[in-house]
């Protein structure tokens, strides 16, 4: 018996330990949600609160530097969802936004957060809004894709017109519709209708499926309504709505924009095109130049209108023609945009400078070169040069036309005398198309001398008058290069021919002399 006693005690101890361990293992998952939210709060306050605010109201310190503002989690109006209009998002909807971000806005993707961290921060974000209490959001029933093709695109175009999408998005889809100038988001801040020709900037993605979903659910918090009621009422069929989605997706440029380091300007033999719609432009391959807001010197352009340009260039040995195209929903100045011009200034963080324009403002753009062709890689300061390293600017104003000028820094632009810089422009329903032409070598006094065969630094500026932008406070590109291509000379063809004939001839001589020596040797032998 005494031999068994120690074993009985050991059993009891192990039993207790076993029960204790098992209890702990079960208790930890049962207390899981509490830990999720607590960990979520840590993640949120480190990564999200700067924009979205400590209380989740979309009012963090960075919030008023951006348009649109960050999401207000208290009001819980979520844009990109699979749930019906006005409803809360599912967890999958929120996970998707953390995975891919919201292109076209300041919300990035979050590759540094693992899956569990994302679930934790989502649990915390949901806790900001009482609407999430006892809520179980369910995705909508989406009809399946009937497919694209020419018939679908035609049907989609017809439905786009019948449903009056063009009232905001414009006939061209470029966001220049008649109702666009007065659009506001739920905070009564200015907001634009999407430019449907740039699907890489759609907040929820640019595939037909994503477009279809946005039309069914609406984008809560924005003017974009839901068409699900119209489908349910029989005003439009699910198939027609899919056709609209395919049509909208087809408005994207055929080729994805190719961001260029070098703009090649081929030489044309015929007449140099001066009109934006001249057929000869097809010979020049367009280069896409990204632009960003000027945020270095106050006043800054924190939410600029223009974010990219397509540039083509041609020359004929005497003159160079540069065709620049960019998106701008307003043909400024335009009285229809007066209210927008007043509101947009107050919509983002105010700088020290007084920005209360009440005069109508023009749209404009500028092409920038160094004032002297540089030796080596050094280029002037990209923001219109500096006092001892100036730039040549080909400026264009929607009212004044083209002027060749010298820049010695932002705000230090002086027109130059002489030269023959000319411009032709048209505002094509949401796109400006401007062609600047100038003599290659003979510019204005003090302007850059360009040359065939030479690679020259070039940069671009653009500004939208209706958004109170100016040359100093608008969009700007970094330096890239332009190359005026030399023509194919006759040397290119003749030299190889001569080389071939010459070598063939010498080879024949060699063979003949070798044979004749052989013949002599035989004769002597």
């Amino acid at each position, binding site marked *: 018996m005494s031999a068994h006693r120690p074993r*009985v005690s050991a*059993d*009891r101890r*192990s*039993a207790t330990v*076993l*029960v204790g361990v*098992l*209890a702990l293992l*079960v*208790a930890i998952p*049962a*207390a899981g*949600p*509490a830990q*999720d*939210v607590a960990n979520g709060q840590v993640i949120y306050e480190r990564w999200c609160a700067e924009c979205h605010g400590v*209380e989740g*109201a979309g009012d963090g310190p960075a919030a008023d530097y951006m348009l649109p503002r960050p999401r207000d989690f*208290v*009001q819980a*109006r979520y844009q990109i969802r699979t749930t019906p*209009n*006005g*409803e*809360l998002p599912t967890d999958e909807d929120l996970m998707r936004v953390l995975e891919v971000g919201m292109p076209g806005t300041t919300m990035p993707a979050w590759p540094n957060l693992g899956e569990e961290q994302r679930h934790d921060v989502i*649990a915390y974000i*949901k*806790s*900001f*809004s*009482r*609407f999430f*209490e*006892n*809520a*179980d959001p369910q995705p909508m029933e989406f009809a399946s894709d009937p497919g694209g093709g020419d018939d679908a695109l035609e049907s989609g175009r017809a439905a786009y017109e*019948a*449903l*009056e999408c063009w*009232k*905001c998005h414009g006939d061209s889809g470029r966001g220049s519709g*008649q*109702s666009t100038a*007065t*659009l*506001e988001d*739920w905070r009564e801040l200015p907001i634009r209708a999407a430019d449907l020709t740039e699907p890489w900037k759609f907040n929820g993605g640019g595939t037909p499926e994503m477009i279809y979903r946005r039309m069914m659910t*609406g984008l*809560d918090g924005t*003017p*974009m*309504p*839901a*068409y699900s*009621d*119209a489908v349910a*009422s029989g*005003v*439009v069929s699910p198939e027609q709505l899919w056709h609209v989605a395919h049509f909208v997706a087809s408005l994207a440029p055929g080729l994805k924009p190719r961001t260029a380091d070098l703009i090649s300007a081929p030489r044309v033999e015929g007449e140099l095109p001066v009109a934006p719609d001249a057929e000869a432009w097809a010979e020049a391959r367009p280069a896409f130049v990204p632009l960003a807001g000027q945020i270095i010197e106050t006043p800054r352009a924190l939410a600029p209108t223009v974010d990219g340009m397509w540039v083509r260039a041609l020359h004929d040995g005497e003159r160079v023609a540069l065709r620049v195209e960019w998106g701008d929903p307003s043909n400024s100045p335009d009285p229809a945009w007066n209210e927008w011009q007043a509101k947009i200034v107050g919509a983002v963080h105010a700088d020290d400078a007084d920005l209360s324009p009440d005069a109508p403002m023009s749209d404009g753009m500028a092409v920038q070169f160094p004032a002297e062709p540089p030796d080596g890689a050094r280029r002037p300061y990209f923001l219109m040069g500096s006092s001892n390293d100036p730039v040549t600017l080909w400026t264009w104003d929607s009212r004044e036309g083209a002027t060749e000028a010298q820049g010695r820094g932002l705000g230090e632009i002086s027109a130059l005398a002489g030269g023959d810089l000319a411009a032709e422009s048209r505002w094509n329903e949401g796109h400006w198309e401007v062609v600047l032409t100038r003599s290659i070598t003979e510019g204005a006094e003090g302007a850059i001398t360009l040359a065939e065969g030479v690679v020259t630094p070039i940069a671009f500026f653009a500004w939208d008058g209706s958004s109170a932008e100016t040359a100093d406070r608008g969009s700007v590109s970094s330096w890239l290069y332009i190359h005026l291509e030399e023509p194919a000379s006759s040397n290119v063809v003749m030299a190889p021919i001569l080389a071939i004939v010459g070598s063939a001839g010498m080879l024949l001589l060699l063979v003949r002399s070798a044979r004749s020596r052989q013949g002599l040797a035989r004769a002597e032998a």
Partner: protein
Amino acid sequence: MSNRDSIRLAFVAVLAIGCGGDAGDGAGETEGQQTEAAAPAVDPAVAATISGTVTFTGTGPEATPIDMSEEPVCADKHSEPPTSPAVKVSDGNLANVFVFVSEGLGDMTFPASSEAVVIDQDGCLYHPHVLGIQTGQNLTIRNSDAVLHNINTRSTDNRPFNISQPQAGMESTRSFNTAEVMIPVGCDVHGWMSAFIGVTAHPYHAVTADDGTFTIEGLPPGEYVIEAWHETLGAQTMSVTVGEAETGTADFTYDENAAYAPVPMTEPLIVSHGGHGAG
């Protein structure tokens, strides 16, 4: 204790602990303000009425006509350009004032009428401009114009909606589950369009007519606080006591130079994180 017993004990312990704890979130809608208690019947023999007139002293803002030239279908419906309905004064009487019982009903509940309230988009204007509705009552949204309208609500206590109605004759139905005074409504296609919806948990609300008058009927006798709300001028309250089958009077005056409680009325409800537990 034998090993077998220990294992049995552990198994029971696991079951006991694992099956306790949170039952998880239930599925279902967000909570409304109405309980399941049966409504007290208001005996018509004793039901009281509160009525009154809302007047305006001052010159009032200049009536600027609305430019509808971008929408000929709507412009053609008006013999002359209509003016903004924001401050509508005729002979010193103020129309479009939302009047409702804000205190005094205690925790009495009232069934929502099965009749829907209608808001119509006609001539690119909302009819009516101000309307009252009860929680749970249906709102019928009608488009009487052969153009695209979208009806976009900016509610804070109710879930918002933004419905596209591209065709004349189209109707949509919605309702609100939380009292909210007032919910601004607008159309983004036609930026001048504006309306306001006042949602109360009871049926005792009214909107002043062009002659400034309103009537609230079928009230249980008692002491009430009546509130008047105007979209630009602000809100005022007044106490009224009505006995059985009595008609009480609540006359409000808005003076152009005075300041009233600011609009909009409701603040968004911010969830405090003090003591926030397991989600």
